[in-house]
């Protein structure tokens, strides 16, 4: 993007609007790349819809398990300021230098004082409908949205609070302020990212489904809460009308989506998968047999590995699928059971269910028009943010970017990828200001305590009355003082408060403490704070330990004061035994070569190269073919019509070739990669056969994919049978003429060999069918399909094609179309499911929608980089949901069709995302790694390689030393899980901070008292 000329200075800060998973991801990428981030949300905490979900498809991962570490990381990031209860009231300035005005609602709580202990909510006499649980439960008038909320600061619901004053009396932290007023704020930022997410469709608008009238008709988001173990029913599926476990549930798809009448013609893109997931999880969560039926129009399982999930849902999990749009739902008022009315095989049918779940679609966020007006951005006809194919994260206003469901309905991984992509764009225009708005913390030099006898200090927290009300804290303190090596112990009202941090630092120095223990809440949220505190007092942070006497003691043994006190003492004794053995650990520092290597010069590789170069980094771009462009070369025009892909390709290639920071190698190949994050060395075999060695800090894999060469339907034997790409080329050249065309979908996809969907062929078929109709409206075009997967706004073109007379006919695997050559005439025979007859047509041309299959080079590249492939042969990312462009191995990323088949805008989003993720590394001179790493004793190592195989991060390599092959840990890559150590046959591997000796000391001390 050309930089705008502005005389005002650019600002190295970014405003991110919306704290869902997309906003969180964008914030973390920006903050990790040296930019200040203001993350605003209109609600009291971040997390978005993902925080409400039970499981996520297609891995059935627990949503909170994977989200909460990101929440904590965002909340604690020194470069991220979270502003909750905030809305934008005005915007001035230009890209690079914006002034944003905000209004913040009052919390009636002093945020700095509230430590989230929750006593106020326990005592609050008022009960309010809990919207986090979608109205299925109650919360108090003073509340946090959910237990893991970030920031964990309570808020008073002013509309419901009766002002009884109880919370103020009970709050030991004096955090309640009833007269607190709302505030205004002005932020100066260089760019803005919009991630306001979506609004679930209001199901009462589809009155025929009875939502709001029949209690056992629930929405899919309500059903997520019903499924959740932390939800209103504890994870047991119950009917809201009578609390009975249902035996039969119907899932109704496309509620508020693909519905022209109500004005939402688009497809919400995620509902097919989440409906399937909810059906599967409901079956898992129900102790008795549960029948789950999904009523759908097309099953749009178009994402990576989604069809495999669909197969399992039908086979292994026994979910029933009925292809029909449900006409209505009625209720038997006596039983609360529901009658689902639908049409199958042209026959109206009615079936009784215990419960109905409506798979509701995504709508633009509330008040979006006001936001758009204040920011000056254009919305599309459905009031989602307007974007273009080749600039999917750019709004109509320069400097304002978009990601997530606000750009178009989408699922989590695509939101996350787009969020990283938007982060790349947002930092690209202010790259020169990197590091200007952030603070880095300086610590005093570390004291060497290795020769000292352990001197342990113990700080026991009352946590107001959360711990002190159950556990006898003074007794625990007195007891702690009797323990070996404990030289100091005290109680604090709140150990986490600012003044206690100061006190801990003083006590460390005054008492010459060299080990510190805090007995309070959970290390998951508070350990980093205390580690910082001891570091500020000159101690190595690994000389700190924590034990949880609140969440795992006082809160769960509230009525057993004595036993809880005993347990707290046991916990302090055992952690003290471990603390005695703690050793300072060094955080390995590794230098970073600020250069990128990109393998593959298609649209993804070129986009990633330009983004990295725009950030100021040197890039080596290696393409195997003679020219850049990859798959994009074959695309003649777009479904969305606006952009000309040929022109875009030319300008992309030109920008790449003209960029001084990008070194392009065509007809070349990467033949070897050594090293690890920050420090790779690779060999490129150039077109002239010569090898060149380069040094680089990251690798981006963008090897693309290829069109399947069909072996079915007479392809290759008859020139009248062509693929979609071949058709597209003919149309573009103007050489295509036909009176009758049959297109066959899913050729080489969704079959036994390749069970997954190739994603882009439905859109391609619609695109080409529309082109044919445009040139010659009288030409008959048939599209024979299994499911038309025109997701998102592509649904509009599906509708347009149908309106223009393209004939769509569904076929099933059992009755595939037949193509034959009868005396020189092409004949296609297929089953017509509406009239229930075999139909024969004689087309001039048969077009096969051939799948997009993995690049055959992938195997070699995967072996070279030691990264995994899926069964299908695409590259396998670190985590399908939250790390879509990372590999498990640090410093290696992927994007585009190397990941799976996708449209141009999706490849571009991923390419920018990979660039942003890479920038979090390249923007640092050096990386400080975690100190908890594996150590190999070379004397003990037998070189068996088990650890090398086990390590999911490629952190163990085998090295030859003195004639022996020994395991060597690359500290930069080790994540400290310890799997290698426990499997080591010779016990040659120890884990820092969790040595067997330390773990056993901890346990033995626990058991000591019991035995005595």
């Amino acid at each position, binding site marked *: 993007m050309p930089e705008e000329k502005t005389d005002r200075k650019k600002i190295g800060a970014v405003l991110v609007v919306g704290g869902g998973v997309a906003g969180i991801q964008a914030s973390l990428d920006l903050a990790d790349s040296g930019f200040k981030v203001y993350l605003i949300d209109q609600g009291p905490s971040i997390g978005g819809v993902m925080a409400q979900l039970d499981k996520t498809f297609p*891995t059935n*991962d*627990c*949503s*909170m*398990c994977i989200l*909460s570490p990101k929440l904590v990381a965002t909340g604690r990031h020194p470069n991220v300021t979270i502003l909750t209860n905030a809305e934008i009231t005005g915007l001035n300035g230009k890209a690079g230098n914006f002034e944003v005005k905000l209004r913040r609602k009052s919390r009636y709580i002093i945020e700095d004082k509230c430590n989230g202990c*929750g006593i106020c909510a326990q005592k609050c006499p008022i009960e309010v409908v809990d919207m986090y649980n979608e109205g299925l439960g109650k919360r108090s008038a003073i509340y946090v949205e959910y*237990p*893991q909320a970030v920031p964990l600061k309570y808020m008073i619901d002013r509309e419901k609070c009766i002002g009884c004053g109880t919370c103020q009396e009970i709050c030991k932290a004096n955090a309640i302020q009833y007269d607190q007023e709302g505030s205004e704020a002005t932020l100066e930022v260089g760019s803005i990212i919009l991630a306001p997410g979506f609004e679930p469709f209001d199901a009462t608008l589809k009155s025929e489904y009875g939502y709001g009238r029949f209690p056992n008709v629930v929405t899919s988001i309500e059903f997520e809460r019903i499924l*959740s*173990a*932390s939800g209103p029913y504890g*994870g047991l599926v119950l009917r809201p009308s009578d609390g009975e476990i249902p035996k039969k549930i119907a899932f109704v798809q496309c509620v508020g989506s693909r519905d022209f009448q109500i004005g939402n013609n688009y497809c919400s893109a995620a509902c097919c998968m989440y409906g399937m997931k909810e059906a599967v999880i409901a079956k898992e969560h129900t102790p008795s047999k549960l029948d789950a039926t999904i009523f759908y129009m097309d099953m749009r399982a178009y994402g990576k590995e989604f069809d495999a999930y669909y197969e399992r849902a039908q086979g292994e999990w026994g979910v029933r699928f009925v292809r029909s749009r449900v006409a209505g739902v009625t209720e038997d008022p006596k039983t609360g059971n529901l009658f689902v009315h639908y049409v199958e095989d042209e026959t109206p049918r009615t079936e009784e269910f215990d419960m109905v779940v409506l798979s509701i679609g995504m709508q633009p966020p509330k008040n979006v028009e006001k936001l758009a007006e204040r920011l000056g951005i254009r919305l599309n006809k459905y009031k989602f943010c307007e974007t273009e194919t080749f600039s999917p994260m750019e709004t109509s206003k320069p400097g304002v970017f978009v990601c997530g469901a606000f750009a178009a309905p989408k699922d989590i991984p695509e939101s996350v990828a787009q969020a990283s992509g938007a982060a790349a764009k947002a930092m690209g225009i202010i790259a020169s200001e990197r590091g200007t708005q952030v603070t880095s913390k300086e610590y005093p030099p570390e004291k060497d305590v290795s020769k000292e006898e352990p001197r342990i200090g113990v700080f026991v927290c009352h946590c107001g009355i959360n711990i002190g009300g159950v556990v006898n804290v003074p007794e625990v303190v007195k007891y702690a003082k009797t323990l070996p090596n404990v030289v100091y112990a005290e109680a604090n009202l709140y150990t986490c408060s600012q003044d206690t941090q100061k006190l801990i630092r003083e006590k460390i120095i005054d008492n010459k403490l060299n080990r510190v223990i805090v007995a309070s809440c*959970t*290390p*998951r949220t508070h350990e980093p704070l205390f580690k910082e505190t001891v570091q500020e007092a000159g101690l190595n942070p690994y000389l700190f330990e924590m034990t*949880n006497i*609140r*969440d*795992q*003691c006082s*809160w*769960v*043994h*509230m*009525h057993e004061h004595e036993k*809880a006190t005993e*347990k707290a003492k*046991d*916990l302090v004794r*055992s952690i003290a035994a471990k603390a005695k053995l703690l050793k300072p650990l060094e955080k390995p520092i590794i230098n970073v070569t600020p250069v990128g290597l990109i393998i593959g010069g298609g649209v993804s590789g070129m986009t990633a190269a330009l983004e990295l170069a725009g950030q100021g980094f040197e890039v080596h771009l290696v393409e195997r073919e003679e020219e850049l462009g990859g798959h994009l070369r074959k695309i003649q025009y777009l479904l969305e019509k606006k952009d000309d892909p040929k022109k875009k390709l030319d300008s992309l290639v030109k920008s790449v070739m003209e960029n001084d920071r990008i070194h392009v190698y065509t007809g070349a190949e990467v033949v070897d990669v050594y090293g690890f994050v920050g420090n790779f060395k690779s060999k490129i075999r150039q077109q002239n056969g010569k090898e060149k060695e380069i040094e680089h800090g990251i690798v981006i894999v963008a090897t693309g994919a290829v069109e399947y060469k069909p072996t079915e339907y007479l392809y290759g034997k008859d020139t009248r049978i062509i693929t979609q790409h071949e058709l597209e080329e003919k149309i573009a050249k103007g050489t295509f003429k036909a009176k009758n065309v049959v297109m066959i979908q899913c050729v080489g996809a969704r079959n036994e060999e390749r069970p997954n969907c190739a994603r882009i062929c439905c859109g391609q078929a619609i695109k080409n069918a529309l082109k044919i109709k445009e040139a010659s409206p009288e030409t008959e075009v048939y599209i024979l399909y299994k499911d038309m997967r025109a997701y998102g706004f592509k649904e509009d073109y599906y509708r347009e094609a149908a309106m223009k007379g393209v004939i769509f006919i569904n076929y099933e695997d059992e009755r595939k179309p037949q193509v034959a050559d009868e005396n020189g005439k092409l004949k296609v025979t297929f089953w017509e499911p509406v009239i229930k007859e075999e139909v024969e047509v004689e087309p001039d041309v048969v077009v096969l929608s051939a799948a997009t299959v993995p690049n055959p080079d992938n195997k070699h590249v995967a072996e070279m980089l030691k990264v995994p492939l899926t069964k299908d042969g695409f590259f396998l990312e670190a985590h399908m949901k939250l790390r879509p462009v990372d590999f*498990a191995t640090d410093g290696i990323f992927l994007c585009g069709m190397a990941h799976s088949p996708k449209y141009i805008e999706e490849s571009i989003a991923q390419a920018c995302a990979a660039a942003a993720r890479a920038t979090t590394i390249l923007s640092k001179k050096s990386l400080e790694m975690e100190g*908890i790493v594996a150590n190999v004793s070379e004397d003990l190592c*037998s070189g*068996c390689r*088990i650890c090398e195989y*086990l390590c*999911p991060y490629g952190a163990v390599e085998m090295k030859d030393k003195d004639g022996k092959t020994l395991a060597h840990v690359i500290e930069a890559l080790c*994540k400290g*899980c*310890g*799997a290698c*150590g*426990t*499997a*080591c*046959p*010779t016990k040659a591997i120890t*884990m820092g901070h*969790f040595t*067997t000796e330390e*773990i*056993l000391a901890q*346990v*033995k001390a*626990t*058991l000591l008292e*019991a*035995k005595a």
Partner: protein
Amino acid sequence: MVEFEPKIIGFLCNWCSYAGADLAGVSRIQYPSNIRVVRVMCSGRIDPIIPLEVFMHGADGVIVLGCHPGDCHYSEGNLYEERKIKMLKKLLALTGFEPDRLRLEWVSASEGQRFAEVVTEFTEQIKKLGPSPLSGKKPDDRILENLQAATNAASDFRLRVLVGGERELTEKCNVYEEKIPQEEFDSLLEEVVKAEYVRHKIHLLTRAQPLSVRALAGAVEMKPADVLDQIVAMRRRNMIALDHVEGTTPFYKALEVK
């Protein structure tokens, strides 16, 4: 009489189960206070020798809690742990120490309720089993010795190499690019667990004093012929040597294993 209050050690992975335990706390779900939690980064960190040592020190129960399959923060540490626990249970069954005192469960970060239920149920189960034969002032020496043998077996290269390599061999491939069928591997492991346990038992017994095949057969409750087989194997691996012969009966003595 005072009700038996078992000592239970829980090893919880940092990312899922520990968070689940925290959620139980946040939700104020009450459960018995017997459990003492040790936080580890990954359930896969629990080396087979750790539960054994813990039992030897008198714990009445050990529960290892990790992420559900697919949720592991380190991708598959929990699945490796599952294999280790499976082996460990086989080993425990040989010692006369109830394998039910050891359990592996999956608890996610959102399963506060489930955490409390699992802990409650496990505590109840341990209460029913009664105090560990190794707790209190007079531990059962025979079982203690058996557990020592089991610990030594679990420290032994042979068992560790098989348990460590199990997933690679059964799910990926061996050096010949062949996959070993799970049943085949299971029966191999079963055999090795038994053999290693008996060998280390024999090793412990003969460390105290030289013993004959017949005396050993009585002590380990095996046929003399089978004991002899084991001694032959142990001699090959330098675990044992002939000490002296009394009349027609040879006596064997353990060698210190490095």
